C-alpha cells in the first residue's frame, strides 16, 4: 500500500548486496518508497505479508525461498493480490522467462541491467497496472 505521502511502496529481495544497492538506487530514481531490502526469500515473503507493498522486486536465485517461490506464495495469498511482482534474473533463456511469468510475475528484467532502465521500467509498470505485464524480453509463450 502507498505510504503516508502517497508514494507507492516497494520491497526488494536479492542475495547480492551490491545488486540490491543498485536496485534501491533505481527504486529511488523511480520515486518509490522502499519498505525493506532483504538478502533472502523467507524474510522477503514475511516483509511482503507484513507491509503489503505495491511492488515486490525479486531476484530468482536466493537462499531460503527462490524468487519464483516467493512470487508463487504472493499470488497464492488473496490479501497480497494487489502487489505487483517484478522479477530480476541473470537467466535469459525463454524457459526461465516463462517460469517467471508462470510464477505470477507482472514484469521480468534480465541482468545486467541499467539502473536508469530499471527505474523507467518500474515507472512503466505502475502506469500500466491495468494494462498487463511488462518485460524487457519478448512476450512469454502461451501457457
Amino acid at each position, binding site marked *: 500500500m502507498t505510504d503516508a505521502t502517497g508514494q507507492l511502496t516497494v520491497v526488494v529481495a536479492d542475495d547480492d548486496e551490491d545488486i540490491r544497492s*543498485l536496485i534501491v*538506487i533505481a527504486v529511488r530514481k523511480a520515486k518509490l518508497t522502499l519498505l525493506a531490502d532483504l538478502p533472502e526469500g523467507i524474510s522477503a515473503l514475511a516483509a511482503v505479508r507484513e507491509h503489503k507493498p505495491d511492488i515486490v522486486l525479486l531476484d530468482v*536465485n536466493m537462499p531460503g525461498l527462490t524468487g519464483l517461490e516467493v512470487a508463487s506464495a504472493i499470488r497464492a495469498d488473496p490479501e497480497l493480490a494487489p502487489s505487483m511482482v517484478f522479477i530480476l534474473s*541473470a537467466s535469459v533463456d525463454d524457459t526461465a522467462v516463462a517460469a517467471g511469468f508462470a510464477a505470477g510475475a507482472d514484469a521480468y528484467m534480465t541482468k545486467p541491467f541499467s539502473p*536508469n532502465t530499471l527505474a523507467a521500467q518500474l515507472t512503466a509498470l505502475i502506469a500500466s497496472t491495468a494494462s498487463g505485464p511488462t518485460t524487457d524480453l519478448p512476450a512469454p509463450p502461451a501457457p
Partner: protein
Amino acid sequence: MNPFSALFRRFVFIDNPSPVVKQLPTSLAFLGALIIVLALPDLAITDPTAAISGIVGMVLATLLAVTFSISAPLTRLALLIPFIDLFAIGLLRMGTGGSLSLFGSLVILPVVWIANQPERRYIALAGIGTALALSLPFTLGAMVPQSSADWLRFTITPIVFSVAAAIINEMSRQAAGRVKAIHELAEERDVMLRGAVDYAERLSENEDRLRAADRLTRSVLDAVTEQSVIGADVTGLIDVWNPGAEKMLGLSATQVLGRRYVHEFHVDQELLARSAELNYPPGETVLNPGFSALVETARLGTAEVRQWTYVRADSTTLTVEVAVTRRVDEQGSTVGYIFVATDVTQALEVSRLKDEFVGLISHELRTPLSSILGYLELMRDDEENPLSDEQVQYLGVAERNAHRLLRLVGDLLFTAQVGSSTFSLDTTVLEIGPIVRASVESAKLTAAAAGVDINVTIPDKAISVLGDAQRLGQACDNLISNAIKFTPRGGKVSVNVGIVDSRVVITITDTGMGIPEDELDQLFARFFRASTATRAAVPGVGLGLSITKAIIVAHHGELDVESEVGVGTAFIVRLPLNAPVAV
C-alpha cells in the same frame, strides 16, 4: 605298385596282350608237336631240313615276340611274328609228312592272331598266309600234288581258315568295340569320379572357409562387450545376441534367441511416437508395428542411427544410440536386421553437466557484471558530482570491456543452449535487408577505426524470410565484425544481399588474411581458431562462427566459407525465401 603287378600290366593286358603272350600258345603247340614226333616212332620226320627250318623259324618268332614285348617302339612290328609262325608251321608240316602231316592244323593259332587285327584286310592276309604255308611242300619242290585230295587241301583249307579268320575278325571287332565302349565308360566314370572328388574337395574347402568365417564372426561378436549387437529376422524375432547385449540388457543368449522380439526391449511410448512420426495410421495392419517403427528407415535401404531407450530385464532403462542396418540374402532381399547399440547414458550426462556448468558459470558471471555496469552508469550519470573528461574516458574503457565480457558470457550461454537443445527462435516474417543494413551500420564505427572500407549492396525490393530478427541480426553482426577484425588496415569488406535459386543469399567478403584450406572443415567447431588468427593475435575465443552456424542452421539455412590465405575470405549465408520476390 609291386613288381609283379608292373610285369603283369606290361605283358598281359586283357584287351591288348603283349606279343609274347600272343605267341605263347603257338610256341607251346609247336613244342608239343615236336615232342609228339620225337616220342612216337611211327611219326617220323620225313624232311629233316624242312623240320629244322621250321624249328628255327618258330624259335625266331618266339625270340621276336619276347623282344617286341620288351621294346615298346618295336611292338608295331609284332604282326610279322604270326606270319613267321605260319611259315614255321608250314615247314614243320613239310618235314613231318607234307600234306599227310598231323600238324597242319596248328596254323589256326597264328591265323587267330592275324585275324584278331581290327582291319578286314587281315582276313585276306590270314588266308594268303595259310595258303602259302600249306603250299610250301609244293612250292619248294619237295612234293607234287598227287591227287585231287592234295589240290583240295591246297585250296579249300586256306578258304576254311579265311572264313575262320573272318569270323574271328568280326568277333574281335565286336569285342574291340565293346572294349572301346567299356574304355569310354571307364573314362567317363573316371572323369565323373575326378569331378566328384574335386567337388567334394571344394565343398570341404568351402566348409572350412565357412567355419573359419563363422569363428571370426563369432569371435568379433564376442569381443564386442561394450556394445550390444542384436540380430533379428524380418518379424523382429531375435537370432543374434552377443555378450555386449547380454551385459547391457541382463539376459543370456539362451533366454532370448528365438524367444524374444527386439521391440520388447524398447519403451512403448517411444515406439508409438516414432510410429506417429512415420504416419502409421491407427490400426494399421502391419506385423509388429513397434518393430516396423524401429526398422522403417533401414527397410528402405538407408542405415539409421537414432537414440532410443532400452529396457533391461530388471525394468531399469538406459539411453542408447542404435545403428540399424538391413541383412540381405544373395538376391538382395531383406532377411532381417542388425541392431548395434552403444550406451550413451554417460556421454549424455557428461554433456548435460558440461552445458549445465557453462550455463551456471555464465549465469554467475552476469551478476557481478550487473554490478560493474550498473555502478559505472551511476558514476557517469551522477549530475551532482560530474566526472572530468579524463575520468569519463577511463570509465568508457571500463564500460567497453565490461560489455565485451558480457558478450563473451552471452556467447558461452548461447553455446550451452545450443548444446543442450534449449535454444529456441522467436520466428516472424521479416525483411532481411534492414537487418543486414543495421549490422553494417553498427559496424561502421569499428571499421573506420580499423581503417577498413565497408560497403553494402541490398536490392530495393523487400526480401522476406521467416526468422528471428534478433538472432539473424546476431549472425550478421558476428560475420561482419569478424570480417573487419581479420582485415588489415586499408582493406575492404563487402556485404551483398540477393536471391539465388529461390534462396536468400547474404555474402560477406573481405580482403583479409584468409584461412588455410585444411582448417576450413573445423572452422565452425566450438572454440576453434584459425592459425592465421592466432598468429596475428586477433582477439577472440572461437565461439562466434559456431554460434552463427547454429543460428543459420536453426533457420533451415546453410553457412559456407570460401577462403584463400593472403587474399581474403567470403562467408555465404543461404536462407529459405519466405515469398517470391522479383529482383
